[in-house]
């Protein structure tokens, strides 16, 4: 691990700790309105000012970071598991199963990711409770994001199927199910780890895109997407620079993930 990657680790740990300590750092919560101070600039009471309905922006950034940082890995886990089961199993079984899996992944991959995501999210119920909107958004990311990983896993599992140790195990009479779970799947672990880490920044950015378009997490619950939606109301960049804090934080976090990803690639290689 080089010094940049150590720094990235430190930054991610710091941001995660701060977001987990949101209840302590911003005890008033993300939804409390200060009606006497709407659209206020940064002050001692409100470090990043307040939004147009008087909610403390610092509190919303902390809580929003918590949601994005905890649920993007959860969605990545879901998509990686789906990719492992669908791609891994299809590759291991080969023949028609592998061809069918490839056809399905080809179909999904032929549609641009943003187009697919925005269309699918817009078709889901939009007028739902904040908690449901969080679950719908991140579940959708997990359910749609498995295809590219499944393709990689299908190919890797296909090459494992014809490897010597699998052939020997099969010749020794090991049942197919056991062979897959005990021998093939553990050998897919490096690829699975890599796919998991690749998915996290992609899902963080995707949630932000959905949030800005009004298809993400519902109000009053904050997320990076809904916080960035505030930029829509700006008249100029220099007008209220503190509104860019969520964007800077997002860029820093995603960059940190990218730096760690290069480490993961080194390990996988």
């Amino acid at each position, binding site marked *: 691990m080089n010094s940049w990657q150590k720094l990235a680790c430190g930054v991610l740990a710091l941001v995660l700790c701060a977001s987990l300590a949101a209840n302590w750092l911003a005890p008033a919560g993300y939804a409390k309105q200060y009606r006497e101070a709407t659209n206020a600039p940064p002050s001692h009471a409100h470090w990043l000012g307040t939004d147009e309905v008087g909610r403390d922006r610092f509190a919303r950034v902390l809580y929003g970071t918590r949601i994005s940082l905890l649920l993007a890995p959860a969605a990545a886990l879901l998509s990686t598991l789906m990719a492992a089961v669908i791609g891994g199993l299809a590759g291991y079984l080969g023949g028609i199963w592998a061809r069918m899996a490839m*056809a399905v992944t*080809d*179909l999904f991959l*032929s*549609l*641009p*990711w*943003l*187009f697919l995501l*925005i*269309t*699918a999210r*817009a*078709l*889901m*119920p939009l007028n739902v409770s904040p908690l449901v909107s969080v679950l719908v958004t991140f579940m959708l990311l997990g359910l749609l994001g498995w295809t590219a990983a499944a393709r990689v896993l299908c190919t890797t599992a296909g090459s494992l199927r014809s490897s010597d140790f699998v052939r020997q195990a099969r010749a020794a009479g090991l049942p197919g199910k056991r062979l897959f779970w005990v021998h093939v799947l553990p050998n897919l672990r490096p690829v699975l780890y890599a796919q998991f880490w690749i998915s996290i*920044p992609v899902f963080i*950015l995707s949630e*932000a*895109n959905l949030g*800005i*378009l009004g298809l993400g997490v519902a109000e009053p619950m904050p997320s990076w*997407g809904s916080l*960035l939606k505030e*930029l*829509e109301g*700006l008249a*100029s*960049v220099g007008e209220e620079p503190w509104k860019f804090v969520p*964007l800077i934080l*997002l*860029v820093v976090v*995603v*960059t940190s993930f*990218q730096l760690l990803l290069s480490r993961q690639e080194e390990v996988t290689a």
Partner: protein
Amino acid sequence: MLRGRIAGHALALVATVLLGGLLSATLVRLAPGFEADERELDPHLNAASVNALHEARRQDRNIFRFYLAYMNRAAHGDLGRSLALGQPVRTLLRDRAPLTLRLLTTGLALAWTLALTLALSAAWLRLSVYDTMTTVISGTFLCIPAAVLALLSVLWNAPGSLAIALIVFPHSYRYARNLLVKAYSLPHIITARAKGLGEVRILFWHVVPVVAPQLLAVAGVSVSMAVGAAIPVEALCGLAGIGQLAWQAALARDLPLLVNITILVTLVTLLANSGADVIGHMVRGQES
């Protein structure tokens, strides 16, 4: 060999496009609230009109029947009528396609010019400071959501094509830089440089043939990326193109419009990828 490759691509393209249309139709059909029609709430409509709307919606319930009827009509040039905008889909697509096409062409041209200029200069100069600087610049754009870039372009009064370019550029740069750096470290190119061959000659005679097939494949993928980016860019910049239309169709659960747009998007993406693959194959064939 080449003919077989083209035929294979054409077959896969037709099958995927048809399946893509069916997928989008199924998604819309399964979406909650599909059977509700806002027009039914209009107090000016009498019971017969409401029943007629209800009946029209009911006909779309069986997705396979809807899709077969759609394909039959499409074969005769009728793409249906948008439920939300009340206009023929064909007219809507024809009116909006030029703007999106202009946006994508300019955006992709800008993205690739920037990516290739920076990648080539990084490979030529081989200065770690310059390499780090260009990597940091592209990395930063890679970490900014496409919708934020669209918003920033509105704030700075920049054209939408610039937002598309900045969304596509970091991906193109990453691949182009790696490919060019790798190509410039090949033994025959190092020898050519050591013998004093001009940089332009080395580039066009030795580097381009090596990297062209892979760069073309990345170019194909970048078309798909740009098409996806067109939705937030057009929706947030208020540009009346196909991206904005897709956005409106999805929000209004407009089945005929969404199916047509999905088919169009799939077709453009697959054509770009297949075209890149076939040209790349031709370049490789010429080289060998």
